[in-house]
């Protein structure tokens, strides 16, 4: 299947290029499909292809020795993964897995280098993409370094459970994250931690506070 010019045009890597340039680049781009759960990149292995997600969603993650998973990014259509190993050499920093059926557009490392040499504006675009990636990672490090998210989640749960409004509060994990100044993924992880500790119980769309005193201690509320 031919890669669509409109799709290439919308990629940050190729922003600002005219149609002739995109047509020229298109000959280097190939399509790859994958099913849910398929691993697209293995952490620690060399990578020779830069991938753009055309449809579907890919998660970029690391797995600890004891099997714990940390999602670094959710890669959506129009976004790329494998950038760092392909551009900088070395091995994959994270693994990548299809979260559903996905269609990817790939460019081999040597072809990407050719494109950058032939069209210097692409190099500026690449710098912008990598700068954004650094910003995302710094934000993640900030969360991990300075924010005790679990205790914030515990405090927030207590506060909302204590409200006496006629209709109980209903919060999405995104809203919880926004309230306590962290990422949605951190909220999900904190809820799991609290559930493992026996202080709450997740019942479909209800968060049940099972041990209020223990939750208060976790929240640092006296």
């Amino acid at each position, binding site marked *: 299947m031919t890669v669509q010019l409109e799709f290439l045009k919308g990629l940050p890597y190729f922003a600002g290029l005219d149609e002739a340039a995109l047509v020229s680049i298109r000959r280097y781009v190939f399509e790859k499909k994958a099913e849910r759960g398929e691993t697209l990149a293995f952490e620690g292995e060399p990578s020779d292809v830069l991938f753009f997600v055309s449809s579907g969603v890919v998660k970029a993650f690391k797995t600890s020795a004891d099997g714990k998973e940390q999602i670094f990014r959710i890669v959506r259509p129009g976004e790329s993964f494998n950038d760092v190993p392909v551009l900088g050499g070395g091995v994959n920093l994270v693994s990548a897995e299809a*979260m559903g059926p996905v269609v990817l557009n790939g460019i081999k490392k040597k072809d990407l280098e050719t494109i950058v040499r032939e069209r210097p504006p692409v190099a500026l675009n690449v710098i912008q993409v990598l700068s954004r990636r650094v910003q995302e990672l710094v934000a993640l490090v900030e969360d991990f370094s300075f924010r005790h998210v679990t205790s914030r989640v515990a405090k927030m749960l207590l506060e909302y459970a204590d409200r006496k409004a006629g209709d109980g*509060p209903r919060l*999405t994990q995104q809203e919880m994250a926004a309230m306590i100044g962290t990422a949605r993924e951190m909220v999900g992880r904190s809820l799991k931690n609290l559930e493992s500790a026996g202080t709450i119980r997740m019942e479909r*769309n209800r968060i049940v506070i099972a041990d209020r005193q223990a939750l208060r201690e976790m929240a640092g509320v006296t």
Partner: protein
Amino acid sequence: MNEKPVIDQEKCQGCGLCVDICTCGALALAGDVVELCAADKCGWCTLCELVCPYGAISCPFEIVVEDEGSPH
């Protein structure tokens, strides 16, 4: 089990990411928007909310205290 994920059809662009990610088979595309076709199948995993680039799906939780029974 009356609670259902909330779909904002004005925000929904019909990209289908949520349908692809839903392991319960609760969502389907109807034309160019997504619909909850089988609410009873929804396990509230919240992956649809996670992947939606447009913030069109919400899976809100209510927070209750066990010994107080129903919320508030």
